[in-house]
């Protein structure tokens, strides 16, 4: 895609891209380069001097059981958040698509959690589930469940997953609704005339046609669970109990900021960059294909 008619000026285009390039170089390339460089350095205990250490930081990481555990936690967490959020949002979107009266009211009432900061979402759900005073903890205890996410790792994971899904549900919902509304009515009507009942129509027509949206949302939700949920976790479990909810980003923060382990944290950053790049490439390859489907 190129413009047929173009403007000409020897200096104007450079002036126009300059602000964005300056910020990109100062706040993106410089730090990212430093992160890569630090990943290969080892500092002494006082942080006074650093020497080149090759791949030692990476080797240490993959021998560190806490780091491997954090990988596993991240995988479980992001899968739960992505799949849970997508299933719930799909159900609501399919229902909202059927509604004729009050559709806008329903949409309005479902989209506002998008505006809530992840950290605030964490605070709200942390309060609802607060072990001794939370209203939901009270209900759980009435049902005979001993609820205390401060001590129980499974319950801590449940809490951060619920808060993360809740915050993301409006996003998924809007994309599914847009996807559903772009399915031609004639297809559904033809199937109805052939005698397919609503449930069958959903599985044989609607769901396959939604698969591009679903796949796109899967990638976006995984990226969300990897990075944006930092606030949810810091406001509730802070990675605990004993690392049960310590996702990779949280560990980078803990090791880099709290423990001041520059080399180890930078090596983790480098691995995270690799993961983001993979996910972004997957997403873009897919977007290109979607245009032609």
């Amino acid at each position: 895609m190129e413009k047929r008619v173009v403007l000409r000026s020897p200096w104007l285009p450079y002036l126009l891209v300059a602000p964005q390039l300056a910020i990109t170089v100062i706040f993106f390339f410089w730090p990212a380069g430093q992160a890569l460089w630090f990943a290969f350095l080892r500092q002494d205990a006082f942080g006074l001097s650093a020497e080149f250490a090759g791949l030692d930081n990476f080797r240490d990481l993959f021998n560190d059981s806490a780091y491997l555990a954090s990988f596993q936690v991240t995988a479980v967490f992001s899968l739960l958040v992505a799949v849970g959020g997508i299933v719930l949002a799909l159900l609501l979107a399919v229902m909202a698509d059927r509604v004729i009266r009050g559709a806008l009211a329903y949409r309005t009432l479902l989209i506002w959690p998008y505006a809530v900061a992840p950290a605030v979402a964490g605070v709200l759900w942390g309060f609802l589930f607060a072990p001794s005073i939370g209203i939901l903890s009270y209900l759980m205890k009435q049902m005979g469940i001993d609820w205390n996410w401060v001590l129980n790792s499974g319950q801590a994971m449940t809490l951060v997953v619920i808060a993360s899904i809740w915050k993301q549900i409006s996003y998924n919902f809007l994309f599914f609704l847009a996807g559903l509304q772009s399915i031609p009515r004639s297809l559904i009507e033809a199937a109805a005339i052939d005698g397919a009942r609503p449930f069958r129509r959903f599985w044989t027509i609607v769901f396959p046609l939604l698969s591009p949206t679903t796949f796109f949302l899967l990638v976006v939700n995984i990226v969300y669970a990897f990075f944006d949920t930092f606030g949810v976790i810091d406001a509730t479990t802070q990675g605990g109990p004993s690392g049960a909810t310590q996702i990779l980003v949280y560990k980078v923060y803990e090791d880099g900021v709290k423990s001041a382990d520059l080399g180890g944290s930078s090596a983790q950053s480098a691995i995270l960059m690799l993961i983001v790049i993979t996910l972004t490439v997957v997403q873009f390859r897919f977007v290109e294909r979607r245009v032609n489907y």
Partner: protein
Amino acid sequence: MVERRPLLTVVTHVVMLFGILIVAFPLYITFVASTLTMEQVLEVPMRLLPGDQLWNNYTQVLGAGSTRGSTAPVAPMMFNSMVMALVIAIGKIAISIISAFAIVYFRFPLRHFFFWMIFITLMLPVEVRIIPTFKVVADLGMLDSYAGLTLPLIASATATFLFRQFFMTVPDELLEAARIDGAGPMRFFIDVLLPLSRTSIAALFVIQFIYGWNQYLWPLLITNQESMYTVVIGIKRMIVGGDALTEWHLVMATAMLAMLPPALVVLLMQRWFVKGLVDTEK
């Protein structure tokens, strides 16, 4: 709907109402807690009807803050959040629209190189390069300043893409016509492109305002003085650990205040918000 199925219609509405109930429940409890006294919040189970402390709690957090944990008043935090959200939203739109203009409408050496440089920033979220970015900002002396809060978050590949995408759909005839009328590049940009981009700008503004308001990790790192806290950070700092120690009625009042501006932007600008969301991600 293709055919009448009264039973299914009933099921539909029941599911929708149930969904809305789940989505709204935390908000309702937050609101109720923000209108109670501390003793009432600590009662188990907490009452489910609003109390009479609404005015007291909100004026206390806005003017004085909580008495435990961070004791900073929330009104200046709201101001900081507003500055941060507005500067990020407007700054992003401004630098993205001019760079997209240059990349689409001019032919110059390094054009593709610049485009790829901007593109790559998509792959480097703040969370990935926390410590080195912090160092850069510290070296530049921008800790605890509005510049430090906003500048590192202002470069945006998505906004540049959106404008690039949009400029591609603008008919070439408009540029030819402008040129025949004797308009220079900037005249064409201001009088033709900017007015045409109004919807895209509004849509981006909603998305980026929310993005800026809700930032957490970045302000957490670079603000040490309470006077520079944003409201999202302020809430976190009021929680002192231990259920019964935290002044939950004040935390919840602050949470309501923190949710209000972005929620209003989403609800009042709903049309642009939906468009912005679906467009920016494509």
